[in-house]
């Protein structure tokens, strides 16, 4: 079967046809600062507006957190955040690569619209970022940590944010400085206008170098005898290679023995614990500084990590290990506590709409995300029944409650996984005659989605300076 879909990323006029059962609240042309008439946010605008602490990390699997069921890692601080808030188990990166995913988190737009379809690209200047949007409404907006849009760390002057500087180049691990500077910010702040503080950590991204430098960092012989018998097992789909578009097959990592995969995973979980400690410093600072009661914490990752599933390392691809990311929202008294939401498909797109909703302002025009607020407050809400992610510029994934469909433009091989019965994505059903209608339905959804995209003008990638990183 060969799909015949419209080319990806071409400019389109915005269509009122929508992928939603209902329109996203606030999609439209309202100006920043305008209360969101008729929504819960209208009341927010008149009350004390909340602060936001957006915590972003890099390359964290949804299931690499103890509270999400991982027995190989200790994450007491993320566990505490989850216990005090709502965690989404069907949360997706818009494009599991650093820069594209981050562009969506900060704009509510798809990467094809922000223009950040690969690493080291800037956000299309016509698309406002979260800082620009909230600053116009009276928020103090502060950024600390990894940016990667396009520079790894932001300059002192950047659109929409004051910058607390921490690093100088991509791959430069500064997470303890990020948490320390954010603690200083929280301690020194004594009221006034509400704030949006972004704390952007690099870990557990260092794992990228355990594949890039695998000959040095992951030797054939286990480098620590004490770890014998203590390493996590390889995932059950480690050797699974379902039929895939050519671009996905090229990403298979063939260099490791089972023992090396296990040591690689052990190292990854230590990086997650390093991250957890810095998250803990932020949460403690929030409490001791007195801001906890009026600060909504949103935690997410730009993308996941292969972790040996399908013999993959790193990210990019539409498999669960790459595209699923944690999304945790916490603010006791405002947000449901101890709620694990496995029913709603959510996206990195949704942070912008959620922040705007709680801030009591309309989101920017054409945002594709939905406010999570009804879900966070356990209110009934119509919700999207599918979402789309982007990959390698020409690849798209359509996710519905049960199915995952993958299409790469120009590639005759598609993918269809039944996630209910095949959660490890080991059996590609795209050419199973019994699934023909499912494939057809997902193609239709993809076509519908693509027709809404307003593609950004093409921008040449900025040449990254050394050291190079992904």
């Amino acid at each position: 079967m060969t799909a015949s879909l419209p080319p990806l990323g071409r400019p389109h006029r915005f269509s009122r046809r929508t992928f939603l059962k209902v329109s996203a609240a606030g999609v439209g042309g309202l100006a920043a600062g305008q209360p969101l008439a008729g929504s819960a946010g209208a009341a927010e605008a008149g009350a004390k507006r909340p602060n936001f602490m957006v915590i972003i990390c890099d390359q964290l699997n949804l299931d690499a957190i103890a509270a999400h069921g991982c027995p190989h890692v200790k994450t007491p601080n993320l566990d505490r955040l989850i216990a005090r808030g709502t965690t989404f188990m069907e949360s997706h990166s818009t494009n599991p690569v650093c820069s594209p995913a981050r562009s969506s988190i900060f704009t509510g737009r798809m990467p094809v619209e922000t223009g950040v379809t690969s690493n080291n690209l800037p956000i299309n200047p016509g698309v406002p970022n979260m800082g620009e949007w909230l600053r116009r409404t009276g928020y103090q907006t502060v950024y600390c940590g990894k940016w990667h849009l396009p520079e790894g760390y932001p300059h002192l002057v950047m659109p929409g944010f004051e910058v607390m500087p921490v690093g100088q180049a991509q791959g430069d691990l500064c997470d303890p400085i990020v948490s320390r500077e954010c603690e200083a910010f929280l301690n020194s702040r004594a009221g006034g206008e509400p704030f949006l503080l972004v704390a952007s950590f690099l870990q557990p991204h260092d794992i990228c170098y355990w594949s890039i430098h695998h000959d040095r960092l992951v030797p054939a012989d286990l480098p620590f005898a004490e770890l014998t018998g203590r390493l996590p097992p390889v995932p059950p789909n480690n050797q699974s290679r379902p039929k895939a578009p050519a671009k996905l097959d090229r990403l298979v990592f063939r260099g490791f023995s089972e023992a090396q995969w296990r040591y690689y995973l052990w190292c990854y979980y230590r990086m997650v614990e390093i991250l957890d400690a810095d998250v803990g410093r932020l949460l403690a600072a929030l409490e001791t500084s007195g801001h906890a009661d009026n600060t909504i914490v949103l935690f997410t990752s730009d993308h996941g990590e292969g972790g040996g599933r399908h013999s993959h390392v790193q990210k990019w691809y539409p498999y669960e290990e790459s595209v699923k990311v944690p999304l945790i929202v916490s603010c006791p008294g405002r947000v449901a506590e101890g709620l694990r939401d496995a029913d709603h498909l959510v996206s990195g797109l949704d942070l912008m709409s959620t922040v705007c909703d709680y801030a009591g302002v309309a989101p920017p025009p054409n945002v594709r995300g939905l406010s999570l607020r009804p879900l966070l407050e356990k209110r009934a809400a119509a919700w999207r029944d599918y979402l789309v992610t982007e990959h390698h510029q020409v690849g798209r994934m359509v996710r519905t409650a049960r199915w995952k469909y993958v299409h790469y433009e120009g590639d005759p091989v598609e993918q269809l996984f039944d996630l209910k019965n095949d959660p490890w994505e080991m059996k590609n059903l795209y050419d199973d005659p019994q699934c023909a209608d499912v494939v057809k339905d997902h193609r239709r959804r993809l076509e519908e989605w693509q027709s809404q995209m307003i593609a950004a003008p093409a921008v040449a990638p900025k040449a990254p300076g050394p050291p190079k990183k992904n």
Partner: protein
Amino acid sequence: MPEKARSPADIFSLNEAATLLKTFRLPQGVFDPKGAWDHAYRVCSLIGDGSVVGSLRVRRAPAADGATLSVDYRKNVTDGCTYDVAATIRCRDDAFASAIGWEVSSQARKATGEVLESTALTQSAALKDGALVVTAGRRERRTPVATPCTTHWSLFDAVQRLPRGPGEPLKFTLLDDLDHVKPGQSLAYRGAFDVALAAAAGSTRLHAFHQLGEGSLPVLYWLDDSGRLLFVISGIHGYLWEERRAS
């Protein structure tokens, strides 16, 4: 006993820093790890061939109940800015240089030297009644801690005096970056290695310890025969000893 000098490129963890070590110069002079000393390190990112991203200076002054470590850490930042940490750590006279307490101040500075006030943080801490109590102004944060416990910088000191040879690993709680409490650490002697450091004639006998534990990638400490700590390498991050310039 090691038999033949090996290149850093062939030794786990030194291999990450092999390119930077090509120009490494061995320190000269007598060293007493129990006395007063003053070490300087390049803070390195070991991605690719490696690059220097900051500096670290650690000074030890013996005291009646142990020692005081003075730490000055500088990280290079975008636009000519720096991030500076100055810490004074009071340590016990034991195998871990266990922490008694510390004071720390940190801040980012613009290229002009101007402090970015929102980043400035001053804290003190003490270990008492089974807890780490961190104080910043009128704010106090208390975290339960299992002893013995020591800071990551105190290990730069302690490891220089540890016995070398087979034996049970030392077990402790790490105060990583001073206040990240990470229990379940172990520190073990890894062995002696005759290493061919390019800038040194012949081979150099190095001793290694490794640290494993919760919330930390393996850390390898490399010392010369006198006990002087030369390199600390953890994954793609490293501290490499350097001759301190006169200030």
